[in-house]
């Protein structure tokens, strides 16, 4: 679990005079799901496409499963699977033909089992143009995984999908991780990164401004945990003052809402208050700051809080 499968060292990428990626470094370990997060133009796609061998770096060193993507692209093709954000298949190609086509080019047996596993069995004779966006994405993911590559790149895999298709894609991605595949995921969807990723890097203006597990990233923020309390007689709303470590914020739908940097003692103090008041608790919700809130905090401060942490 500790060996490094993807290594990026002082990677730079320029487009004319514009420096899109400014010497970033990170490593991805075997079996990890690693998320690259950042607003548009942050350098996510440039990084991903350079790792996939689609672009040449202007500086630094890249290694994917021991291969330099820009020097040995042919060797790379069987080591990686890629679900591109902007890619497609020939419109008239059926699901089964696509699987046969790509398996043949990778020199592996045709993976009809993946058509079943990715829920495409009923559509095996359907042409690509007639599949829904969700099914097209699922097929692209199945094709990317067909030759069992050790590293899988997913670029915005759930963009534009409905809730159900999104959940299915998450389940499939988690299943691939279970089978030992290393996944590098570029996404705008913070909830997706929080749910799937073991670690994430936040890119801003071509530099990494935060790196770590989603939990560690959110813990580093200045945001406090939100505690919402509903009681039978609303004694907390009558009082409207801080309770121990809990700072009273507002009232909404009969809930008293507090924030705290130390949620454990704060909740204990609120429960003690209700017991003293003889006011039975109806509902208690504790919400830690989300990765999205942390992301917005970092990007709104323009990344001025120390990089490559």
């Amino acid at each position, binding site marked *: 679990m500790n060996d490094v499968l993807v290594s990026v060292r002082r990677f730079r990428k320029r*487009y004319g005079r514009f420096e899109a990626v400014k010497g970033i470094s990170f490593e991805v370990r075997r079996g990890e799901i690693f998320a690259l997060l950042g607003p548009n133009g942050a350098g996510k796609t440039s990084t991903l496409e350079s790792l996939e061998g*689609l672009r040449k770096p202007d500086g630094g060193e890249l290694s994917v499963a021991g291969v330099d993507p820009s020097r040995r692209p042919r060797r790379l093709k069987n080591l990686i699977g890629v679900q591109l954000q*902007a*890619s*497609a298949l020939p419109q008239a*190609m059926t699901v089964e033909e696509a699987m046969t086509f790509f398996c043949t080019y990778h020199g592996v047996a045709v993976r009809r089992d993946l058509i079943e596993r990715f829920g495409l069995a009923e559509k095996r004779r359907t042409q690509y143009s007639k599949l829904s966006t969700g099914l097209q994405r699922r097929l692209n993911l199945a094709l990317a995984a067909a030759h069992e590559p050790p590293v899988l790149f997913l670029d915005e895999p759930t963009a534009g999908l409905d809730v159900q298709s999104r959940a299915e894609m998450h389940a499939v991605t988690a299943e691939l991780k279970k089978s030992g595949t290393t996944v590098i995921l570029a996404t705008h969807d913070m909830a997706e990164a929080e749910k799937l990723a073991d670690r994430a890097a936040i890119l801003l203006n071509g530099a990494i401004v935060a790196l770590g597990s989603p939990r560690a990233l959110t813990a580093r923020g200045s945001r406090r945990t939100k505690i919402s309390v509903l009681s039978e007689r609303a004694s907390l709303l009558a009082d409207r003052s801080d309770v121990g470590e809990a700072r009273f914020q507002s009232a909404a739908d009969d809930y008293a809402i507090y924030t705290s940097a130390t949620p454990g003692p704060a909740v204990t103090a609120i429960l003690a208050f209700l017991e003293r008041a003889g006011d039975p608790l109806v509902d208690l919700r504790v919400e830690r700051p989300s990765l999205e809130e942390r992301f917005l905090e970092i990007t709104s401060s323009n990344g001025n809080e120390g990089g490559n942490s």
Partner: protein
Amino acid sequence: MKAFIHHLAYDFKTGIRDRTKLLMFYLFPLAFFFAVSSFMTQINPFFKDTMIPAMVLFAVMSACLLSLPGTLVTARESGVFRSFRINGVPAASILSIPVISAAAHMAVAAVIIGFAGTLVFKGAAPANVLGFAAAALLSYLAYAGFGLVLGTAAGNANASILLAQAVYIPSILLGGLMVPLSVLPDAFRRAALILPSSHGMILFQALGYPAAGKAFPWVSLAALGGGAVVSFFLSAWIFQWDTRASRPNRKAFAALLALVPYALAVAVGG
């Protein structure tokens, strides 16, 4: 090799399944053949002499100019080539397979035109079938090369349509398909040698309908052969895996070099 053959078989199937390809490979040229042959044989008895090669050439041009460039541009714009690249499909396969599979469809269309032209419209059957087939193949390769160059050089689908029409329409009007080259005024006849169809019609006559005492048209043979070779190399050089608005293909202007063999034929004078 297995992947190449599989890819080729898939591409051949789409010639029937894909509506645009079906239209340009069969429906449009065959409908045009039946319609034009019906009335042209009534108003111009000499049309029967050139009907079969002219209609075969028309089918070739429809496939190579109206289908091939658009297919390439659309695949590049929609990201099909990116998918192919990542999965190890070589550029050589992307360029050669549509040409080979369309050649097979053209052979079928040519056989239909040959039989129907002879049996239904009493057109002149080729005296030398192998020679006729050689002329058809060379004309096909020349136009397929043009199609590849247009498909790789055009920045978008609209540009590919415009460029293809710039070759297609003059090829029909001046290339000896509707009006024999021999009846054109000298200046027009010479200018028409810039078009592969003119050389195609000259070769069809020389190889498919050989007549004693006529000099062999080496210039047309060289123009079509040279044109095909130059076009194939140019398309491989211009080829890009994807379209980037911020970085237009600077090699696209080199596409004009595909005209050089035909320009030389004009200079030599056929």
